[in-house]
């Protein structure tokens, strides 16, 4: 059985800017892999390539043995992707958007109905079900985006900053969904800036910096490796930002 995700020596540039510089990592079945990195580290580019939205310049990507640039449709049917930049039709209502997604994915009517009802109730989206997406708040739009990625029970969930804009209740539900998804044999790959979330739910963490993987392992492994007390400290140490952050905080203490 092929692994959910293999990324090897991945390269991608935008003009003269190198976004990915030989990124390599693997996501095992049943794991929750957290991709961490500072802004501009290449997280979104990586997730877009994995999801078949963006072409890579070099390297290898395999999702359950399928290459997204060759078998894009197959990969898209296996994954559920929640992008950071919401990909919704703003003039549609959530109901109409879910109908479109379910139809294009060729889902069974009863199954899609059940999933939508369950998820809409879980995310407390009922009262916005028939409101145009353009009129919804950022957090509510994020809920629509998440539900549309979950409708087809994907094997691999790819989430780019999934907790942005969500309230505490929804974050807790989202964490529950991620855990349940893994319990049912699925796999999760997500990027986040929220260290606490990554620390609590990730079975493995990969930290990328300037398009390269600079550290990888479970939170416990990384804590021992870089002699840090928590994930935030690990993150700052391996990305070389610890000294700079201390200096800035000291400067702020003086001026504030």
């Amino acid at each position, binding site marked *: 059985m092929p692994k959910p995700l293999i990324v090897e020596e991945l390269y991608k540039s935008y003009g003269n800017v190198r976004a990915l510089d030989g990124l390599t990592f693997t996501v095992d079945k049943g794991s929750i892999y957290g991709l961490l990195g500072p802004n501009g580290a290449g997280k979104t580019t990586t997730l877009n390539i994995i*999801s078949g*939205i*963006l*072409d890579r310049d070099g390297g290898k990507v395999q999702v359950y043995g399928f290459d997204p640039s060759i078998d*894009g*449709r*197959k*990969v*898209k*049917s296996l994954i559920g*992707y929640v*992008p950071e*930049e919401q*990909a*919704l*039709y*703003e*003039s*549609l*209502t959530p*109901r*109409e*958007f*879910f*109908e*479109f*997604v*379910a*139809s*294009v*994915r*060729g*889902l*069974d*009517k009863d199954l*899609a*109905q059940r999933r*939508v*009802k369950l998820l*809409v*109730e879980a995310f407390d989206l*009922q*009262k*916005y*079900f*028939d*409101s*145009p997406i*353009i*009129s919804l708040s950022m957090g509510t739009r994020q809920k629509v985006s998440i539900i549309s990625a979950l409708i087809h029970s994907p094997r691999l969930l790819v989430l780019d900053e999934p907790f942005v804009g969500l309230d505490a209740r929804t974050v807790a539900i989202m964490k529950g969904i991620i855990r349940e998804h893994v319990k049912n044999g699925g796999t999760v790959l997500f990027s986040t800036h929220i260290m606490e979330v990554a620390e609590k739910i990730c079975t493995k963490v990969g930290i990328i910096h300037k398009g390269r993987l600079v550290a990888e392992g479970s939170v416990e492994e990384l804590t021992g490796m870089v002699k840090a007390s928590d994930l935030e400290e690990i993150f700052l140490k391996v990305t070389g930002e610890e000294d700079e952050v201390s200096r800035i905080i000291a400067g702020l203490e003086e001026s504030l």
Partner: protein
Amino acid sequence: MNVKRLLNISRAAYREVNFQALLLYRHAGAYTEEKIRKLQRSVGWQNALNKLILSVMIIFITIFPFAAANGDPFVESVTLGTSLLISMFIMTLYNLPTVTSFLSGKAFKTLTVLPLSEKELKAVSALTFIRFIDAPSIFLLTVPMVASGLRWGVEAVPAVFTASLLTLVFSMAISIHLSSLFYRFVFNVERSFSKSILRFLTVILWGLAVTSLGWIGNIVGWIIGYVSSRASAAHEMLSLIFPYQFMLIAVHSTGKFKVNISLFLPSIPYILLGLLAGFKAVSIISKPSIGRLIRGGIGKPQLSITVTNVALGVIKKDFRVASRSPSHAYIFALPIYMFLVMLPILSGTPSPLKISAATGIIIFSTATNSLYLLSLDLMNPRPLAMLPISWRKIVFSKALFSTVSAIPIAAFIPLYLTYVHGLWADNFVPLIGVSTCFAVSIVEMCVIIRLTKGKLVISYNPFKDVVATLAASIAGLAVGFLTILPYLLLRAVGVAGLSALLLFTGVSIFSVIFSMILLRIMCRD
């Protein structure tokens, strides 16, 4: 807060509204960072250029016909009135995109978090709106006034100025109401059948109204012709139509041309209407907010969804998205336009050439529509890019959608011709031609996809990517022409209508098969 600061804030809001209008109407493509930056840079000069063009048009429309009028004060007054009427519609047409963007309220969201009082926010909103119309309004108010003053004397100026002012107010009121009509009826979603029908009708009317504004120039010749042939009856008729009664008052007050004073009475309701429209417009523009205009569903909805097959799913989505977008609303008015264009062709005795021309119009209008449907997804390609759907399915769905929209008019022609001229085999050529609509749509979209390398995240804009549109149109024309040509040739050499129709049916079926093969080759999964 001082006026200078309010003016500065309104400048920022004005820029944002223009930017949103460009995104709304000119298909910013895939919204890549580079494209957005390009668009941002072009906002300032594009709007300045728009204002300049509009101002020049107002000057030309007013001065040249007036200068060329034959010296008869009555004809001159009709000419100046017509110029005002045309200016009103051109201004409305020009301002519609920005007014729609303005009314969305998006640009004012940021302002609500600033320490501004409600009064100041209203002032900023009004100042922003004034920026859209400043230069053209000055020319609209002054050019007719100066022209009439010079030609007729200073006595004519008050009536001409009133007419110009009302023209400006009506133009703004029409723009504002067309835009808010769009938001109120088109964007609002309520799931009752009657609301859906109402929304659909509004979309058609909206599309017709927006695109018809450009045709208003045609009325000039008609009015001039009518006036010169039946001058006495024309006085009474013109006194009822804005702004001609004001022009009659203007020439009457100079003493150069006398009419019955009772003919001036209809000017009073227009002044009252102008006041009402002006106050209403001010109340709307002082608090633009999309939240006020867009309503969601009421009550607790049933959490059910309707799942269809892929093609129908795409068609339903296209229908919904297009019917709620100001830039695509006219797609639904296309069958009505086709009918209007075809009326003169179908008048008189039908001939194979006339019927072929009508069929050709249906085919190419449908194919053009499919290109617009294609650009609909390339305006916002990300939702589709994330789904497991092939270009083959997308193209097929869009071709099917545009073909179905051509069926009513294609079915009407045989019925009409049979009813008026009797039953002939040739009458059914347009109906059979529907299959060619499908084929030509597929051919044109395949060319576009080939030229844009078939990437879902690459954008296509029918207006901007002229080379791609031209290449697609040439390919479509070739297929369409080759499908109709054998029928025409057979009829030209005297072959019976039924035989020619059978041949046309065969060729049409072949064109569909050809397009499907092309689709398989050019849009691989």
